[in-house]
Structure formats: C-alpha cells, structure tokens
C-alpha cells in the first residue's frame, strides 16, 4: 500500500517508516483522528492487513466514526453489514450515536436493533426514538418486549409524542404489556 508523504506525516509525525502496515499502525498507537485526517478508510486499513473490522475498535474507532455516511459505506463495502454492526453497535451509547444517522440507512440498522442495545437504559432509548422521523412511526417493527426491556414507560413515551394507541398499533402490545408500560 503506497501512502503519500502527507499521509505518512499525518500518521507518524516523526520519522515515518518506509512501508506502513496495519501492525505498524497498531504498534505505534496511531490515533483514529490521525488515521481519518490521513484519509485512510477502513477498506484501506484492510488492504494494509487489518483482517477483521473488530480490530478497528481496538485502534479506537467507535460508533461516532461509523455515524458518518462515507465511513459507514466504506466499512460495508470492505467487511459487509453483519461484521460492521457486530463491531460497532455494542451498547446503548452506540445506539444513540447511530440512531437517525446515515449509517443506520446504509447498514440497514432497524430501530428494534437499536433498542435491543438499550436494555434498562430508558434515557438512551428515548434518545434513539427522538431521532426517528416521523416520530409517530418510530416504533414500526419494534416488539413490545423490546420496548419494555428498555425501561421506557408511558410518561416518557407520551413526552415523545407516542401514545397508547400508537404503541398498541405498532408494537402489537397486549393489554397486560400496555399496563406494564404504564398505559
């Protein structure tokens, strides 16, 4: 992989090596910000020896990076959707970062998948729903059990503009589950 002098200097401010591989980047603790400034997408890191997308997490890339459309599209092209989602969508904070982003479209990440990462995290779950447009249809495809598991309850849902009728229609929640949700 041939890098320009500018790219090399952005990665290694002093004495950049002649040949740069993924292992050299890891060994030198190069920051993700420097890698992105050098315009090295994940597909190029793959060509340089990064065998799995999970290794990019070890470098310090996170869901905030993935929320960027071009970054997500490149990751999909290099590794496929499932590997990228497994690597970057781990916890509730990741779900908040990715909700409503270009990455959610590119990687086909559903609201159900995002809410599954928000177990017992009602504030994060609310933030995920808040970023869906239109809000009234945010729960399309979401299971009643997933919604219950997030800890979100009627008061917070109503504050988001999602009432009992919407919850019942979109999640198929039964009377008992609606009661558990506080409706």
């Amino acid at each position, binding site marked *: 992989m041939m890098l320009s002098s500018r790219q090399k200097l952005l990665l290694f401010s002093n004495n950049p090596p002649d040949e740069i591989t993924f292992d050299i980047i890891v060994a030198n603790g190069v920051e993700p910000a420097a890698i992105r400034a050098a315009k090295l997408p994940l597909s190029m890191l793959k060509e340089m020896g990064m065998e799995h997308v999970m290794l990019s997490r070890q470098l310090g890339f996170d869901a905030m990076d993935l929320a960027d459309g071009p970054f997500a599209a490149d990751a999909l092209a290099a590794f496929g*959707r499932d590997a990228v989602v497994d690597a970057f969508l781990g916890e509730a904070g990741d779900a908040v970062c990715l909700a409503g982003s270009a990455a959610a479209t590119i*990687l*086909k990440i559903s609201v159900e998948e995002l809410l599954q990462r928000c177990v017992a995290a009602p504030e994060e779950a609310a933030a995920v729903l808040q970023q869906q447009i239109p809000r009234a249809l945010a729960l399309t495809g979401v299971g009643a059990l997933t919604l219950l598991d997030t800890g979100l309850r009627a008061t917070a849902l109503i504050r988001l503009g999602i009432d009992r009728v919407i919850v019942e229609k979109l999640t198929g929640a039964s009377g008992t589950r609606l009661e558990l949700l506080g409706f």
Partner: protein
Amino acid sequence: MLTLSESQLRSAVEQVAGGEAAADDSGSLVCLLCLEPSTTPAETTLEGALNCLIEACQPSPVVMHVELAIVGGDGKISHFATYLAQRAEFREEQADSKSFYTRQTAGRWRAIPIARSRLASMVQKESTKEVGAPYSLARYITSVPPFRALAAALPSRPGSAGHCATIAARILKRAFPGLLTNSSGWYSPSTLAIELNQLLPRTHHFLSETRSMKATGEEEEANEALQALLIGNDADVVRANPVAKRQSIENLAMRACDPDADEVGLAVAQRQLANSLLRASFT
C-alpha cells in the same frame, strides 16, 4: 372494409406478442435518484450559499439533485445526470463516480421507481440526445412559483441548457408523453420527485401486471443478490449474477412503490433501492 384471414390474424398476434416480449427484454424500469440535503457543512462558501438557495426555494421534502438510473434488460444500469458547472452526461464512465456515489454521498439517496412498457430503452435513447447539454443555474427561476408561468416559453429542445431536474423531466416527457403534467422548465428537483411519487400506484400496477413467475432457483438467486446488494461486502456484490441483481432491483422497486406501505416503509424501501442501484452500478 379490411378483412384478415385466420393465418394473417395469428401472425399479427404473434408479432405483437413477440414485440412485447422484446420490450420486456429491453427493460421497463427507470428510477429517479434523489439526493437529500447533507447534514454536514458545505466545503466552500459558494456551495453553502447555493445549497441554502436551493433549500429555501423548494417545497418539502427538499431534494438537492435528481438524476436518472436506467435499468437495462441485460442488468446494465446507466446513470444520466447534469451537475453544476458540468455538461449532461452518462456517469458510469466517469473516474470519480464510484467514490462520489458509494462513499461521499452514501446514505443520502432515494430512488423513485417509474415502470412503463419499453421505458428503459426510450429513456436511454432520449438521454443520449441530451449528452453535452449545458448546466444552467438560471433555469431554477422558472421552477419557483411566481415565474413558473414562464416555464413553457423556455426552449425544451434536446441539448438545450437546464439544471438537473429540467433535463431529467425533458427526457421523461419525451420518452413517455403524458407522464408529467408540466413543461420541463417548471420542475425543481423537489417538485419532480413529488410528482413522480404521486405516480407510484401506477408503477406498482404495471410491475404487478408484468411480473412473470420465476422458477424457485431464480428467486433464490435474486434473494441472494439482494442480500449482497443490501448488506454484503463489495466482493459479494461483484460475485452476484447480473441478471439476479436486476431481478432483485425489480423486487425492491415493487416495495418502493407499494401503495399499502406507510410513509416510513416507503422511505426505507426507496433508500434501499437507491443503495442497491448505486452498489450494483459502481462496485
């Protein structure tokens, strides 16, 4: 009075049937690719100012740019577009197209399917006539309400100046007379997208009527191609059979014009259709 013998009648019917089969082979699907506004700041002040102007002068939902994706019967997809400061051209041969469509603007496209008999070949033919048409920012004026009355007075010959929506509308009007109600100069990217979205039920009807029963193996191959286009990596996309890719795009087009789908379902399907078209073309 004209009379036909039985053999002449049969021959005429066979010719028509043969003609329709050939029409199906030439492709009937064209998509209007719509680029939604970027959420990141523009790179230059001029670009930022232009974007603000385009957003301010158009009805919601705002579309920044439109172009045509022509799905040929052989699975080849042609992209015809007119960009600021460039001439109208087919985009698949441009060196920077892959980076532009599948990286820089990824996730911001929606595809509105339009399907009519022989539409793809007609649009391809009309697009060829428009190659080299100069871009005109000034033509946006006639797409804004007080000046729309002047739109019909503007030249609409093939090759005359226009912006992305003017030229796309001109091609569609000539390829399928009666498809659009206004003169080509009347349209902005948003109004063209809005009008074509209103025609989705007709497209759905056409696709349902002309969809042939496929063998189980073919359907499986189309599903595999669809998975590759939507969630696979580039190697999966390249490996997929071109005919199966075309079939999977037609299946997605059916979902992208489903009259029973709600607003979210339609938006998701149209985004997936755009992603698939662009990956199929530029991977």
